[in-house]
């Protein structure tokens, strides 16, 4: 009890007596505010969790493909003439050797025939003999993080071995996917901000209506010479306690829903879905969220009270 009081006094929200000069605990207005805060906290949790999930998805896609490229050596030249396998092997070796000595390249691997066959199988059909089908040569390259290089210059150099060689850095389609997830992320941030603004407006409205109901009592305190901070502290404390209670309820429901979604996603085993495991920092931020909502409620209450009191003579 003592510690709580000390903590509250530290925040400037506690009084020696646990009673308000204004009859704030009368009526159902408090329950409405608590429910509202619970709902807003729940929605904010979903919003923040969506941001985390989309960020994880973006990170996974970009980290898996960033600094990586695929080099394709088509099995025929630009006029359509199919190369001999020996020519393909020579070309592949030349490109491999060139890339191994290229300063920006970290590792280079030649994809073996079986892997290439498994890649084209979905398009050509299973059980097909590939002996007479010209297969391209494919090399996967990963680049050094700390070396900046020009991909166009690299591609031009590769084309000196054979003009039909293609360098695919995945940037074109990855950029589209990242743009899309970025837009979703932005929408999630926007929704979270809207939830925050709605909370502010709702708390301000609730406090204003309370002040209208207890206008006579407020005026009395004002006429007795009560400082604005003396009056606002009481409403701040009242809103903070309700907000903490509401935020705890919202967090509990939000946490439960997220846990269930996580379980469901785990059972579905869909590789495209992001990993729902949260990092320590993300857990910390989610724990901070209800406190942030409560703090937002308290600050809004304070500003609202001070604004209303400023209108008194």
């Amino acid at each position, binding site marked *: 009890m003592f510690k709580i009081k000390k903590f509250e006094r530290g925040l400037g929200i506690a009084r*020696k007596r646990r*009673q308000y*000069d204004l*009859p704030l*605990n*009368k009526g159902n207005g408090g329950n409405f505010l608590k429910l509202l805060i619970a709902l807003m906290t729940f929605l904010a949790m979903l919003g923040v969790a969506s941001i985390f999930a989309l960020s994880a998805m973006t990170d996974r896609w970009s980290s898996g493909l960033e600094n990586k490229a695929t080099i394709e050596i088509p099995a025929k030249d630009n006029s359509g003439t199919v190369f001999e396998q020996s020519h393909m092997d020579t070309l592949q070796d030349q490109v491999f050797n060139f890339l191994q000595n290229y300063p920006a390249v970290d590792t280079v691997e030649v994809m073996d025939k079986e892997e290439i066959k498994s890649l084209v199988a979905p398009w050509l059909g299973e059980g097909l003999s590939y002996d007479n089908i010209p297969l391209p040569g494919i090399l996967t390259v990963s680049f050094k993080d700390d070396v900046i290089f020009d991909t166009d210059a690299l591609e031009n150099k590769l084309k000196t071995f054979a003009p039909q060689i293609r360098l695919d850095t995945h940037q074109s389609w990855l950029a589209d996917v990242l743009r899309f997830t970025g837009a979703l992320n932005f929408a999630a941030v926007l929704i979270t901000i809207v939830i925050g603004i709605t909370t502010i407006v709702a708390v301000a409205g609730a406090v204003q209506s309370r002040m209208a109901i207890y206008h*006579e*009592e407020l*005026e*009395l*305190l*004002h*006429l*007795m*010479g*009560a*400082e*604005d901070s*003396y009056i606002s502290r009481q409403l701040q404390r009242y809103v903070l306690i309700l907000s903490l209670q509401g935020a705890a309820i919202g967090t509990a429901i939000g946490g439960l829903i997220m846990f269930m979604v996580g379980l469901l996603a785990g059972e579905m085993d869909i590789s495209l879905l992001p990993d729902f495991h949260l990092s320590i920092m993300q857990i910390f931020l989610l724990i901070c969220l209800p406190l942030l909502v409560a703090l937002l409620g308290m600050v809004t209450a304070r500003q609202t009270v001070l604004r209303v009191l*400023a209108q008194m*003579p």
Partner: protein
Amino acid sequence: MIKFEHVGLRYGVGPEILSDVNFTLDQGSFHFLSGPSGAGKTSLMSLMYLGRRPTRGIVSMFGQNVGQMGRHDLKKIRQRIGVVFQDFRLLNHMSAFDNIALPLRIMGESEKEIKANVDELMEWVGLGDHRHQLPNTMSGGQQQRIAIARAVITRPRLLLADEPTGNLDDEIGLRLMNLFDQLNRMGTTIVIASHNTLLMEKFSQHSRLILDKGQLRLIHPRKTIKQKLEGIF
């Protein structure tokens, strides 16, 4: 102490409730404010306890023009004024004790100090056995005594009371008038709005402010024969 210079007050675009009111009340003086119903007594009182701002003129309290004072300074002035409202304006969710203690808590007094002062005053006004009772469960007279106790607990420099003895029996009324007298002797300026002519006759040594049709007249107390003789010799 209190100075009104050409003060006017109107509500919205309506006619002036008070027009060109001029008076000066000295520190430690005692006045009755009377006049017919609707003459503007409550409005004048509200200007004195800084519940309203005049629409024109200058109001000075304790030597300072309140129109030029900052918000914080006005709070300090209000803390030096005790008010007994006609409708008491008690906080019904609080005990009688807490209602009386409220001005001291606003001023930041210690709980020990508050308890000692409030207990003593509650005994004095005959409410010693009603400390924890809620005002709305008490009689009109008891509520009025709480309102008076709340107004005087801080020993204000100015006490404004609107019909303070209206619901009280003669004995308690007289006792409270004596309390006002005692406060007055300690330097508190007292203004009592009242219709009670008997009360005003009983305390005829005090001057009367008569408000009629928004205009104020000051009538000085009748001098006793002794005072008249003192004036001649």
